[in-house]
């Protein structure tokens, strides 16, 4: 036990814990919107399309996060525009942008001369190398998301639930939908460095699905998802240290185990109560 606690003496591990707490908090808000609107597939499209931006940024020698952010935002806005105009099937458009982004990323990384040392960081994440500057960025973004959700909670809820009715009521539906698309894209990109492209979406879905086992109230799902996100990611981090396995994968693995255990408890409880009634 003391071995396990001694790991907190290391600055890099403490930073990793702070990062997972901060990501869990803003992912709880954005993820609740994603899961409630059933747009997880859009999140996947944004995440993978951002790899195109990373590849192009590598090729031109500029900050890969900038490239990822531009691609993610363009993809998110593009998907929302297609969804609103209905010119192309939304799922088809997502599939095209998803694979196009990955293809561009692979082509440009291949064309980049020399070795691309941080490529694996983007694919699988590197939460143990999070710097203090990264923490400030995560914290600042978390505060921005919290303010937006506090001020605009109702229009966000109404436009997600029944956009047509919200439009009849005079709510600027398109503005809110585009704003949420940009927030979604930024949240995903900002979390990629810690969790990686391949696994990041899990932080925006698994804690929310776990929270939804307890409540079907949008406002209550958010804090519960944050709690399950924090508990799953911190435990996953500790496990990765104990078992010497990649931290991003360990976090996602533990978030899933946590969900399955809680789900099992709910199923057993329901079965027990049904038998008791008989």
């Amino acid at each position, binding site marked *: 036990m003391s071995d396990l606690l001694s790991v907190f003496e290391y600055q890099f591990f403490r930073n990793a814990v702070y990062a997972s707490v901060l990501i869990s908090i803003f992912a709880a808000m954005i993820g609740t919107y994603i899961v*409630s609107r059933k747009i997880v597939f859009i999140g996947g499209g944004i995440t993978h399309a951002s790899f195109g931006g990373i590849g192009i940024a590598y090729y031109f020698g500029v900050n890969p996060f900038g490239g990822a952010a531009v691609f993610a935002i363009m993809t998110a806005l593009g998907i929302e525009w297609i969804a609103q105009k209905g010119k192309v099937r939304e799922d088809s458009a997502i599939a095209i942008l998803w694979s196009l982004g990955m293809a561009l990323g692979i082509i440009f990384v291949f064309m980049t001369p020399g070795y691309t040392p941080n490529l694996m960081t983007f694919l699988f994440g590197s939460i143990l190398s999070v710097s203090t500057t990264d923490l400030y960025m995560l914290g600042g973004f978390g505060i921005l998301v919290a303010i937006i959700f506090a001020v605009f909670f109702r*229009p966000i*809820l109404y436009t997600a639930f*029944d956009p047509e*009715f919200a*439009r*009849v*009521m005079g709510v600027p539906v398109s503005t809110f939908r585009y704003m949420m698309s940009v927030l979604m894209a930024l949240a995903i990109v900002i979390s990629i460095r810690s969790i990686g492209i391949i696994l990041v979406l899990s932080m925006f879905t698994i804690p929310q699905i776990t929270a939804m086992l307890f409540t079907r109230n949008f406002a209550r799902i958010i804090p519960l998802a944050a709690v399950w996100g924090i508990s799953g990611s911190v435990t996953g981090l500790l496990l990765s240290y104990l078992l010497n396995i990649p931290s991003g994968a360990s976090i996602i693995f533990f978030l899933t185990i946590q969900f399955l255990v809680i789900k099992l408890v709910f199923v057993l409880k329901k079965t027990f109560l049904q038998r008791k009634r008989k």
Partner: protein
Amino acid sequence: MNKPIVILENISTGYTAKPVLEGVSLSVHQNDFIGVLGPNGGGKTTLMKLILGLLKPFSGKISFPSGRPPTGYLPQVSQIDKSFPITVKELVSSGLKDINPWFPHPGISQRKALHRMLDEAGLAELASRPIGELSGGQLQKALLSRALINKPRLLILDEPNTHVDKQFERDLYNWLQELNKEMAILLVSHDIGTISPIVKTIACVNGNLHYHPSNQLSEEVLRVYNCPVDVIAHGPVPHRVLKSHDHDKD
């Protein structure tokens, strides 16, 4: 006849270049109760979206002589995602109009109106329940409460009798008869048999619109207006629906 609250004059509209509705004219007055009937794809929902301001006319004119009236809208229940995590209270309060749409946090008077509406609809005890836990009738009641909380002068209902039991349907029609004393109602349906005893007049929509100034749709009337009716086995009870037809032959 009192002053109309909505006037449609020779309107064509649709979603693409090809209009769904053409040459549509209709006036809606205070205390009208119009059944909007027609086959699937005939343009009933398009007409409703036009009046709600969700669609613009390609040609023709829509006007509101006393300004756009407060309008309540009940969508088809099939459009509602029952698994969405929203409570009855949140659902009903989304119909509150007199608040800034950018920052719609209800004030004291709005909260009072919300509680009054929940009490009137018999939903007070279900206020904190997520809509996924409601029966079909309870959900329809919550959606109707959302449409009514704004005290509308015009109420538009899209197929309100789907996914509800017969008892609720009877209660709903009694409620609508009461509401009609204070507001105009447009009731969209494909089922003539069920709604013709409830409504006062009928607008038959099938690409264009033919207004029947009574709710009596006898075979004679239907023949004169060239509105053929099919009796089809749709659901557990066979009922009468308008067959796809062309008013140009009138």
